[in-house]
């Protein structure tokens, strides 16, 4: 399984859905809360050039912005 990082905020409903989806599919991921973690916030902006959450970074793939279930499914071969 590739390394998976999720950039999210605790109040963002689509972030919850994305994380639920990963959990349901037994995908391990690191969750970075960009509302608290300034370093993670800058890292996300640098990687994606934008400030919308959620963002999921799957090793070997371009970052996926928003909860794009199909793109995530493809990238993780689910």
């Amino acid at each position: 399984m590739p390394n998976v990082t999720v950039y999210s905020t605790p109040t963002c409903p689509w972030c919850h859905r994305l994380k639920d989806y990963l959990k349901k599919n037994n995908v391990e991921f690191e969750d970075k809360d960009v509302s608290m973690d300034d370093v993670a916030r800058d890292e996300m902006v640098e990687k994606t050039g934008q400030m919308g959450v959620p963002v999921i970074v799957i090793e070997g793939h371009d970052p996926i912005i928003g909860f794009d279930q199909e793109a995530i499914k493809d990238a993780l071969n689910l």
Partner: protein
Amino acid sequence: MQYDTIIIGGGISALSAAVYCGRFQLKTLVIGEKIGGNIILTESISNYPGFKKISGMDLFDKIKEHALEYKIDLVGGKVDKVKKVNDYFEVSAKEKVYKVKAIIFATGTDWRKLDVPGEKKFANKGVHYCALCDGAFYKNKAIGVVGGSDSAAKEALLLSEYVKKVYIIYRKGRIRAEPIILKRVQENQNIEIIYDTNVVEIKGNKFVNSIMMDKPYRGSKELKLDGLFVAIGRTPISDIAKSIAVRTNKKGEIITDKNTGATNIKGVYACGDVADNKFKQAITAVAGGVIAANSVYRFIKNEMPVLGSSEDS
């Protein structure tokens, strides 16, 4: 797979229609771009009978689970095109073409856009539509909220917890918020209201750094901002329905018969927030889905559905 009907949409109205289509044993495909719909943006619902308090996400999950009890298919994705061919419809989605006898549009609504230069270019780069989602990026920054409704005022209050300064920019002279909300806005030291003013352009380099207004505020039409939250309501997603000549009203809502959810096109039904029902609530969206499903059954089978026992009714 051959389907009888396709439900376009991924919210509670679509999934409620799916519960009934499933029970009627119609071969049903639900295609939704956003599985969950707008209800999941609501933190707490207290007016859905049977639940004193439930989050939008939990309510959606319960309805989805219920729908999946039946033999229906649910997929995430976008419907690209719908074409009417004789007495059936061709629905193109996910590189496949489905032939169905009936369609239910439960496509919901999207954020209404300002439609000014820079809005598209800076989407998620300073222009946002969901304070709950993206507000956290503006800690100690100056931001604007466009709009004067109760929800715009609530967005401004929410954002004022993170940011240094919130400007509410509203085209009219009075904020239309619930009195208690309005009082909180007026007493909030971080919030300033700019009345009778329109945003005409959003400017920046990589990210937003200012907006242009149609009237000067404190001597300048340009206002330095790090972000702009647009809260001017929602707009129905009815373009695909319109492409097969489904009639809509001035707001773009699909015109439906209130007893059946039927549109002007035979075999096409609509429900939920995209339909022209006046009282838009979670419970009415659910009811609309159920009514549309019942009509689809009657249309396809040319008969009234018969439900099994009293516990089913």
